[in-house]
């Protein structure tokens, strides 16, 4: 059984936000408008954080795409009174919309600020509703949602793999979430962490790698790679 994970090479990320756009399109994520966004209710399952280092004009700009870290020891899971937020056998923090009653405990518990609450029923004016992805639910008001590592693509890939072989192994590189697929710089790499030879697994072992807010002990499945001052060559 695979254990899904992601590696993000921050030295490659150009901050173009193609991943954000692709994620919105793939996962039927609503836009909330300027007023709601100003109240902190904007919904982006993936966001690109900007960091300025130094003083103008000697500044350096770095980017960090942040999305659900699919923690192994996820703070969002034990707080859910209805088990809407739970851990799958493949290491995902799944969100079952049917079970969610909108307590928002999970979003408060999340250290990464990657869970989003539907304060309104989402609307797409015609003809924009025609571009909704039929493979993904449209979440209604009162429901929490978050990055799923494109579970619809994982399920589809598994169905395809089982049609070809009895074992149904999803080969490395055949499956990509929308963000990784759209990344022009190949900064996002998705795959099976339990497969020692997979690209994501090799990148995750890189000495350049670190986890986001590692000291909190949530054990994220996402590794960020960044050149450290201690290794000018860039390491792995």
């Amino acid at each position: 059984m695979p254990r899904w994970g992601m590696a993000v090479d921050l030295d490659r990320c150009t901050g173009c936000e193609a991943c954000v756009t692709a994620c919105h399109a793939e996962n039927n994520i609503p836009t909330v408008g300027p007023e709601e966004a100003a109240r902190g209710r904007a919904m982006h399952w993936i966001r690109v954080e900007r960091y300025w280092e130094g003083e103008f004009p000697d500044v350096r700009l770095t980017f960090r795409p942040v999305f659900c870290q699919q923690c192994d020891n996820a703070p969002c899971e034990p707080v859910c009174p209805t088990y809407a937020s739970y851990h799958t056998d493949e290491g995902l923090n799944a969100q079952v919309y049917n079970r969610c009653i909108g307590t928002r405990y999970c979003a408060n518990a999340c250290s990464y600020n990657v869970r989003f609450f539907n304060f309104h029923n989402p609307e797409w004016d015609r003809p924009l509703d025609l571009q909704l992805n039929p493979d993904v639910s449209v979440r209604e008001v009162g429901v929490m949602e978050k990055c799923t590592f494109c579970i619809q693509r994982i399920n589809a890939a598994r169905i395809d793999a089982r049609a070809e072989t009895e074992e149904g192994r999803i080969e490395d590189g055949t499956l990509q979430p929308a963000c990784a697929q759209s990344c022009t710089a190949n900064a996002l790499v998705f795959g099976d962490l339990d497969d020692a030879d997979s690209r994501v697994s090799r990148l995750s072992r890189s000495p350049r790698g670190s986890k986001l807010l590692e000291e909190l002990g949530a054990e994220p499945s996402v590794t960020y790679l960044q050149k450290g001052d201690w290794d000018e060559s860039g390491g792995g």
Partner: protein
Amino acid sequence: MGGLAASVVLIGVLAGVRLISAQDRLVEPQSGSVFSPAHATFRDALAHFLGWRREPVQPIPFPHRTHFEEAFLECTYCHDGAARGPVARIPSVVVCMDCHFDVATDREPIQLLTSFYESGQEPPWERVYGWLPEAHVRFNHAPHVRREIECTVCHGDVTQMIVAEPAVDHTMSFCVGCHEQSQASIDCVTCHY
């Protein structure tokens, strides 16, 4: 207690009368009005709770039995998506006209069908099965067909029906029971995402 029960039944009957009128869609996305997170109106919530569904109304009384017994058509001849992907599909009028250019052209329903074809319109067929959007269920026919699960398991014996009717209740326990028996995944996100 009796009064309460009677009033609940009365509300139910009133809501039911509204529910089965032909203009109503099974699911109306109603922006603005919200009764609960999962239901736009009280009527939706009550119908959902009591398991009421409106009977599908078809533009032409399509006889499944005739097509199976006299024309010897397999289900997947018309519902050709079932073997390949998520949706079995209601066939286009073009598929009907493959045969009905020549077959039974003197019958009134076929003339109606031909008029749909000639005006470039699809007959407004109504789906017999399907979940509410609030159920957040994603279903894929292909892996089930590949496992050689008969269509009748989930759809009843449509080959003996005149107009297709919902013969099997697609509840979660119906799905999970079969998944457990055949050791298929019963992880929530297998179907709910």
